């Protein structure tokens, strides 16, 4: 069990194509008494109802919800970005949503979440880049590591779509490249 001093302040996760499968390996592993907040950006089409929340909640012990503007970020809750809004972290550790332009064709954008979270949490942050067919998240993961945080990347050879974890691993040689199961175990240990 990690002690309070090394417990991360927050975890941010980005996923695109194949996200549901990958998150279904990780989030159900986190125990009900998890002590760290989790913020998640998944690329979803703008007009789709966010089924992802219900699907993941059905399998998980921690609470899964759609992020709401100005919510205080709480440990043991996973916040998913709503479709068509960027999910950001304020320095006060509140959520802010924005309608700002898409970044690299994505809204929500993984980079936007990661960069604002890196700013708000500094070294206490773990960033995780999972499966996806684009390169969103690499800039953000770079920012997290530059701010003293840690990076985890899904092993591209095991990912549903390889481009995103590949780009992140290339941009961040310091990041650990792991299987989904190992990422799940790592996160579980870090916040329990």
């Amino acid at each position, binding site marked *: 069990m990690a002690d309070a001093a090394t417990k991360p302040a927050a975890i941010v996760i980005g996923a695109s194509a194949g996200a549901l499968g990958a998150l279904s390996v990780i989030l159900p592993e986190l125990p009900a008494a998890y002590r760290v907040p989790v913020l998640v950006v998944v690329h979803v089409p703008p007009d789709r109802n966010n089924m992802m929340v219900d699907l993941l909640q059905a399998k998980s012990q921690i609470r899964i919800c759609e992020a709401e503007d100005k919510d205080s970020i709480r440990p043991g809750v996973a916040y998913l970005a709503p479709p068509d809004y960027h999910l950001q972290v304020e*320095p006060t550790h509140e959520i802010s949503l924005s309608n*700002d332009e898409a970044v690299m064709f994505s809204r929500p954008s993984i980079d936007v979440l990661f960069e604002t979270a890196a700013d708000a949490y*500094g070294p206490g942050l773990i960033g995780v880049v999972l499966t996806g067919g684009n390169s969103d998240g690499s800039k953000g993961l770079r920012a997290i590591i530059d701010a003293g945080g840690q990076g985890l990347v899904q092993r591209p050879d095991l990912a549903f779509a390889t481009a995103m974890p590949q780009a992140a691993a290339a941009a961040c040689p310091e990041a650990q490249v792991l299987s989904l199961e190992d990422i799940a175990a790592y996160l579980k240990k870090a916040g329990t």
Partner: protein
Amino acid sequence: MTDDLPVAKTDDIEIRLLLEAIFRKYHYDFRNYAIASIKRRLVQARDHFRCATFSQLQDKALHDPAILRELLGFLTVQVSEMFRDPSYFKAIREKVVPHLRTYPSLKIWVAGCSSGEEVYSLAILLREEGLEEKAMIYATDINPEALRKAEAGIFSTDRIQQFTQNHRLSGGKSSLSDYYTADYGGAQFDKTLRSRVLFSDHSLVTDAVFGEMHLISCRNVLIYFDRDLQDRAIGLFRDSLGRKGFLGLGSKESLRFSKHSDAFADFSRDERLYQKLGA
């Protein structure tokens, strides 16, 4: 909230000072906007103006008033659409309009109207519902460039397909093409749509109430504010609404953190429509 934070980072200090400088010199007050979005946009501005630091940008902003207009373009987000979130306009049409019909004259305020997409949407809806003649729409924003575009009512033709689809989904009773003429310069919306619209400069942060409105639509503006500022704006809406007046917010905005929430009842929860309680 600063007690548990480490010593402020240099760029955060600089951003605070830059926002303070813009406020003192030009009276545009971004000091209590949610900072994550402002910071990202100021990074873009800093790069655009080829400044190495936010302090350099501050120097420029203070000594070259000409750049302020451009800087406002960075500090305010101008993303909009006609009939954005069609179900919102559908709810206004089906649920709010029957109430609006009962008044001899109507005052409607579109706060943070950007380039006018929302204003033209409401003007078309009112015309379709036969309410246009007795309505007055007050359309306000802090960005003069956006207000100028709103008044011109010209939108790029490649956006029209989306607008048309939104209009249809909102329960539109006519064809959107009835309201514009398209040429190479874009789609020019019918000027008579704005004969009942008054565009003006008004800030939800620094300006005062507008009297006796029947409907206030303020969408995708409050998310850019911190909680205190949201509260100020919502207080302004409460005081600007007549008895039983309606307030419509963006699809991710609500009154739940507001100390004024007691003054309103949910009217259409999913569409973020509220009704001011009778005094």
